[in-house]
């Protein structure tokens, strides 16, 4: 059982600068060649100020979070079970986004081999004025490292 006291534990915001090259490489890695991720003129003609990032791009953002520290356990393995994003607006090339991570829930769920420990980790991205840009939620099945007896 994970420590319920972990709920609410958070990391300080970390600055992520959204670079065009990073957007391009991310879209290429997915195999998504929509010109909205590559071509400035196309993006402007589509009504955006500049190229935008694919919806899962926040997965590439850094945060200061160390899950071991946040959850307070050694981790043997993590299984990514669910992922969700809420977007206030698209992410644009040139954005400077501050990402912070917090433990939004820990609980047990019945699994195939007994109870599973679940942690829900929420990332929040804000622009320099403090406006919310996105929220991301990861639901992880956590197998804590066995403590030495």
């Amino acid at each position, binding site marked *: 059982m994970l420590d319920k006291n972990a709920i609410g534990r958070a990391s300080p915001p970390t600055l992520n600068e959204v670079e065009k090259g990073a957007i391009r490489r991310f879209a290429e890695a*997915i195999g998504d060649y929509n010109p909205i991720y590559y071509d400035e003129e196309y993006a402007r003609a589509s009504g955006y100020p500049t190229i935008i990032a694919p919806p*899962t791009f926040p997965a590439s953002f850094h945060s200061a979070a160390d899950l071991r520290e946040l959850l307070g356990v050694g981790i043997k393995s993590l299984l990514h079970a669910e992922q969700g994003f809420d977007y206030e607006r698209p992410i644009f090339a040139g954005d400077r986004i501050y990402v912070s991570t917090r433990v939004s829930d820990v609980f047990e769920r019945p699994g195939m081999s007994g109870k599973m420990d679940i942690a829900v980790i929420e990332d929040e991205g804000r622009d320099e004025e403090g406006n919310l840009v996105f929220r991301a939620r990861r639901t992880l099945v956590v197998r804590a490292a066995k403590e030495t007896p």
Partner: protein
Amino acid sequence: MPARKLYFEAIRVGDELPALAKAPVDRVQLSRYAGASGDFNPVHVDELYAKSVGMPSVYAPGMLVMGMLGQLISDWARGGQMRRYNVRFIKMVWPGDTVVCKGRVSDRHGSGGRYFVEIDLWAENQKGELVMKGSSQIQLFYSLEDENRQRSGQSPIVVEVPRESLSNATANAAAPTSPSGSAAPGGEDEDPDERHAGVSSKKTVPREKPAAKTASLPAAKKAKK
């Protein structure tokens, strides 16, 4: 020249997104994704490590598959803005697997000049097995007219569109007001291009006519560039 945009008025509950078959996943793609995402978890890039922890080989990170399903949405909803996107990872995707992304409109609603469609999404491998399941909410302009009004600083077209369930759509499709019947769920044999081409003929559902207070559309036309 940007591709033609998708507008709320053209979408019906039950519409299918044109399926997207991705190229087979290979280890080079896994390396590229690791580099692009900054996630160098060795189970995705280091074959020896993956085998040492009991896996038959490296496997794709769930977020890569979520990115593929995201492409399905963005390709379809050009001009729309994604508001929400959630998935559940069901089955691992291995090198050599082909991911096929699919989706269907599950609901549509609008209020106060903001219009949303809800999409059910899923991804299958080449064996037809479900590897991921999810949903998304997209915000769209009601119509080209609405977009032009808003981009020229005018108020949006306001049409109250209550949430529609899939069962309501079936009822509507059966009613004489929807001659094409294209809102019927399960219309898998429908040609998506034909559907998009045919939108203009079925945009008039009586209860969705713009409210009288927003009937100043000719003025909006003048404001168009």
